[in-house]
């Protein structure tokens, strides 16, 4: 069963402030059907970088065997990615982890809340949710106007609200500012972003069932090294912990301690 592939870069473009969009192609794409899963990307030549980088799936075009990822250049790995040009190969392990459990979700009112590079997986999620006849509202938070991406893509699928820290675009402030006015009769919510944001969101949305996607530094990315654990809220849980790479990155909002 295929679990890894040298995928080929089709496109790699500057999308927003320090943010890039890359399209990769390969048959591995056929496995990428669950929104919320991530790809574990090899960086550099040979063993020059000993750890892979987890990056979420932003979108998949099964027909053309293309997967889109969006990443922010924050260090050596993502800046290496930003320098790859069409035709180059990147070794991909994945898709890894469990995505958002949406198989049964249809005809519901849903709220999608993303912050920064937490936005990418929510695009594929929103696409699937809309395909499944749900009504989605999206709140997308960014630092500043120049960092905003995929506004139009979301708008085609969902009622979309942009929030920026500095107010240079959309609402000024935090994504949680908008929640009171939008959560009305929402059935579920889905969120991905910085831990502080997830914390605020899940507090704000205490009474609505929701799913959040977490980030943690990873070793193996496949559940073998115990690098990426978090504790369960339930102290009587048999294991008391979850592995983000394998049990997550998506969890029920009240399953793990943020």
């Amino acid at each position, binding site marked *: 069963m295929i679990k890894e592939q040298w995928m080929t870069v089709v496109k790699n473009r500057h999308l927003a402030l320090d943010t890039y969009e890359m399209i990769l192609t390969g048959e591995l794409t056929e496995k990428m059907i669950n929104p919320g899963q991530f790809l574990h990307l090899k960086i550099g030549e040979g063993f020059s970088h000993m*750890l892979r980088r987890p990056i979420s799936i932003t979108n998949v075009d099964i027909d053309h065997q293309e997967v889109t990822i969006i990443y922010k250049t924050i260090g050596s790995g993502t800046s290496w990615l930003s320098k790859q040009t069409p035709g180059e190969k990147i070794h991909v392990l994945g898709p890894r982890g469990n995505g958002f459990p949406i198989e049964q979700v249809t005809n519901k009112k849903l709220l999608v809340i993303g912050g920064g590079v937490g936005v990418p997986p929510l695009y594929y999620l929103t696409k699937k949710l809309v395909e499944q006849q749900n009504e989605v509202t999206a709140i997308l938070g960014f630092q500043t106007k120049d960092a905003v991406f995929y506004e139009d893509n979301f708008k085609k699928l969902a009622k979309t609200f942009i929030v920026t820290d500095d107010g240079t675009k959309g609402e000024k402030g935090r994504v949680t500012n908008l929640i009171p006015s939008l959560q009305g009769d929402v059935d579920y919510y889905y969120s991905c972003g910085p831990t502080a944001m997830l914390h605020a969101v899940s507090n704000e949305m205490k009474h609505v069932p929701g799913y959040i996607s977490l980030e943690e530094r990873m070793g193996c990315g496949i559940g073998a090294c115990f690098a990426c654990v978090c504790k369960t809220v339930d102290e009587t849980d048999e294991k008391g912990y979850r592995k983000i790479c394998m049990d997550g990155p998506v969890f029920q909002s009240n399953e793990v301690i943020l």
Partner: protein
Amino acid sequence: MTNIAVSLPGLELKNPIMPASGCFGFGKEFSEFYDLSKLGAIVIKAATLEGRYGNDTPRVAETSAGMLNAIGLQNPGVDKIISSELPFLEPFNVPVISNVGGSSVEEYVEVAKRISASPIIRALELNISCPNVKEGGIQFGTDPNLAAHVTEQVKKVSTKPVYVKLSPNVSDIVAMAKAVESAGADGLSMINTLTGMSFDLHKRKPLLANKTGGLSGPAIKPVALRMIYQVRQEVDLPIIGMGGITSCEDVIEFLLAGANAVAIGTANFLDPYICEKIIDDLPAKLQQYGFTSVEDCSQKGVAL
């Protein structure tokens, strides 16, 4: 035909390649990638007496040609390992080595007693890099007397051969090896990680929640080779060598330096198929360098 089988106390290995402790969990995750029966052996994650959650996250950090980890011996505890993890490995045709952790001699002894009783376990790897809580945090792995003492006590209760895993964070690795040899160790496993740190420039503090972590990967290979070579001059025990192996050439280097078999740790994270690939390529590579078998190669770089 190049013979890559190796025979060590308690371990009849089809080949000298095994995943290193802590880098392969209890095998289950990697069994999705390839047939574990291909491996020479499997070394499972450290077992302690009680279950441990380990350290806070972040627990890993990448460094140049290496990584730091401060997992903190997370494991479900020896009894649960025996009841819930080992049965999965039984059907595979591969010897299982249990890494044994602890914070006191009593804990090491109790874990060794219980896990060595499991018929699935063929040998123990005594991880003496854990801090000794009673002696105020000194590592068993840096004091020859403590190391000898814990080895001796574990040997008394273990029904399986005991390989002592040496820490590289010492002034005199040969003294450590000799100490555990005379305490009755059946073999050595070396090296564990070098203690290191890295800092988060934005947060202005150590990157790992635990502050320090263990450095592994190609960065430490020269240190591992040196220590194995030095120990091999003075100690006859079989050595399972490790530290930065990523290729057949690396395996041959470790064999030349004096190792009898090798373990592969960090490289599994970059390439989950690495052990399988090295096993497949090893016969041809040995031949290419003029060796007829693993045993023909082992220690060839030591006799001078």
